[in-house]
């Protein structure tokens, strides 16, 4: 790992303006790709890059592109998911605000590669500022002849439009996003058909995350193999933007290769736990990814276990990859970690997140609509001293009955972290069931005096 790639222009003065971005190399790859390369070659490079989708699920982008098989007369759409809403996640916003031309360039190359003529960037409604940044960047690119009827002079019209959402976490789910794009309530669709077959406006559609598309110019420039080799894990290539929030000394975003460990991320990049306090737990990649407990050791005595190499080491010493984290019983998600020090009560933290899911469930499927509310009711009881020990198993029971019983992954994304919390911090839940929580328990004990300005 040497020079930054994805974030290389973040430090450029007014990096969002075309002239400045171009001086720092923007659109060189798109020009070369559209004028001198064939779409099939470009798709092959993305496939070789082992680019695992950056939106959370980690599906290989090149493979997803390969699902396209349009019928006669169908037009393909590219939809870029900028509905960044997973609690803890704030990386895509930085690309849109600080280097929108990288996203536009990635969209141009991707449209050419998958034979799309229109790309929609679906930005969550709260990010009005990012919407404006992107619209200005698109207008500049159109003016310069990089978008429009003949981008870079070739006969392959490409246009990019920004579509603002209006506040709904579920619209990050790709089929809910498509409904929202079409002017409907953001309720996920039953699959199959998958978007690659029947997506936006009934047409074959590829939905990719912002960071995924923003990685495409570097992949095409370096070649898929070379870019993949930047990562430290097999089948999981390149660099990505890690985020760290919560109780660390230096919260923020950090570009690093795929495969650094959580301990490196917290200690070496984010400056360690706030004020040197002990690390209690970390949610690795957005709130839907089950929590890691640094005290727990990897249990993989079997030599053919994918994590055998890390047998006996702390969970936070396993390299962060889509497959390694799945083997660990969690998910890599968006790679934006929420760090909690020893002052945090896990039942209260869990209640905070479950309230989020209750608020954001779209309500279509009964197990999710009712389950999320029920979880909050039970957690409220535990926190308020009205709980009983059986409630802890009830949390597990509700979660198990949500998983796999709904149209989309939202219910699983609620149940998995809930189960992880109970599994790893069961004693705290049992204590709450017996004693409740102290009245003054809160998450921000370690920073409160500085926020409130009291000595």
């Amino acid at each position, binding site marked *: *790992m*040497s020079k*930054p790639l994805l974030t290389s222009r*973040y*430090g450029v003065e007014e990096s969002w303006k075309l002239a400045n971005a171009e001086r720092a190399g923007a659109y060189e790859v798109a020009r070369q790709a559209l004028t001198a390369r064939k779409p099939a070659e470009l798709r092959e490079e993305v496939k070789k890059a082992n680019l695992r989708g950056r939106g959370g699920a980690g599906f290989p982008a090149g493979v997803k592109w390969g699902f396209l098989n349009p019928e006669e007369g169908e037009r393909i759409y590219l939809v870029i998911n900028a509905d960044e*809403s997973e*609690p*803890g*996640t*704030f990386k895509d*916003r*930085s690309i849109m*605000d*600080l280097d929108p031309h990288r996203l536009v360039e990635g969209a141009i190359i991707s449209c050419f590669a998958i034979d799309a003529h229109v790309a929609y960037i679906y930005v*969550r*409604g*709260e990010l*009005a*500022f990012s919407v404006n940044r992107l619209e200005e960047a698109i207008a500049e690119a159109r003016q310069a002849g990089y978008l429009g009827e003949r981008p870079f002079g070739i006969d392959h019209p490409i246009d990019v*439009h920004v*579509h*603002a*959402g*209006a*506040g*709904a976490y579920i619209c990050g789910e790709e089929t809910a996003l498509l409904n*929202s*794009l*079409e*002017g*409907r309530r953001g309720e996920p669709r039953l699959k199959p058909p998958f978007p690659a077959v029947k997506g936006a*406006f009934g047409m074959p559609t590829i939905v990719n995350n912002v960071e995924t598309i923003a990685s495409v110019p570097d992949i095409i420039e370096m070649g898929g193999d070379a870019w993949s080799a930047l990562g430290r894990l097999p089948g999981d290539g390149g660099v990505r933007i890690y*985020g760290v*929030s*919560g109780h660390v*000394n*230096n*919260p*923020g*975003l*950090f*570009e690093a290769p795929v495969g650094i460990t959580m301990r490196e991320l917290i200690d*070496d990049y984010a400056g360690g736990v706030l004020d040197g306090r002990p690390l209690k737990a970390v*949610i690795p990649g957005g*709130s839907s990814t089950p929590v890691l407990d640094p005290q727990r050791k990897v249990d993989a005595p079997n030599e053919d276990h994918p994590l055998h190499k890390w047998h006996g080491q702390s969970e936070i010493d396993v390299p962060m990859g889509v497959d390694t984290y799945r083997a660990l019983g969690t998910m890599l998600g968006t790679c934006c970690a*929420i760090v909690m020090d020893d002052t945090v009560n896990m039942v209260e*933290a869990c209640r*905070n*997140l479950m309230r*989020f899911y209750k*608020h954001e469930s*779209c309500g279509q499927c009964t197990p999710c609509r009712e389950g999320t509310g029920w979880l909050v009711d039970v957690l409220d009881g535990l926190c308020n001293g009205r709980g009983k020990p059986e409630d802890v198993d009830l949390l597990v029971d509700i979660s198990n009955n949500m998983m796999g019983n709904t149209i989309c992954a939202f219910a699983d994304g609620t149940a998995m972290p809930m189960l992880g919390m109970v599994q790893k911090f069961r004693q705290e839940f049992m204590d709450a069931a017996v004693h409740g929580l102290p009245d003054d328990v*809160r*998450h*921000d004990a370690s*920073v409160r005096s*500085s*926020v*409130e*300005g009291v000595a």
Partner: protein
Amino acid sequence: MAFALTPEREQQVDEILTRYPERRAALLPVLWLCQRQNGWISPEVAEYVSKRLELSTAVIKGVVTFYTMFFDEPVGENVVWVCRTLSCDLRGGKAIQDHLEKKLGCAAGHTSADGKFTLLKAECLAACGQAPMVQINDYYYENLNVQQLDRILDAHAAKGGEAAAAEFSSCASFGAPRGSNGGAVTSAPPPPTKEAVRVASRPPPDSTGDES
């Protein structure tokens, strides 16, 4: 009274319609235009959108009520969203909400007596590394403490939202507080801000270090 968009916004609607193969897809962008002009999606607005996009008012109502940012009742001159999801709460989100309620004299979900501010609780606003934060109208204010928050609200009252944003919003600098008194104080190191941007493009500390 019947609602109508300004001529400039009408032109924008025409342009928006060219972006999509189906008329209905313009619904969210058109609702945004209407809400920016009218403050909320009143029955008259729904009536107008219904005619303009050839959709039933029932469809429009269904969409409006699905999304948290469309208001189906009037709101204050400014809307303050305070993020209370975990990352913000770990860094003082509750303290920020408590202070807002005290300062504005209304609980979350309500509008201040002078009609200037509606205070609403938000779920994660994708600013977790710059917590705690609030969104006021279109702008983010990050790395907050209560003193900074007071300055921001006072600027809104004295000079209006756009001027306050120009002085204090962290949007343009991705988290960097602006203005002479900009530095938010946390017990953490100086707010990440410009540094965060540099950090973001810095090679990992364990590399050979020749790049930084």
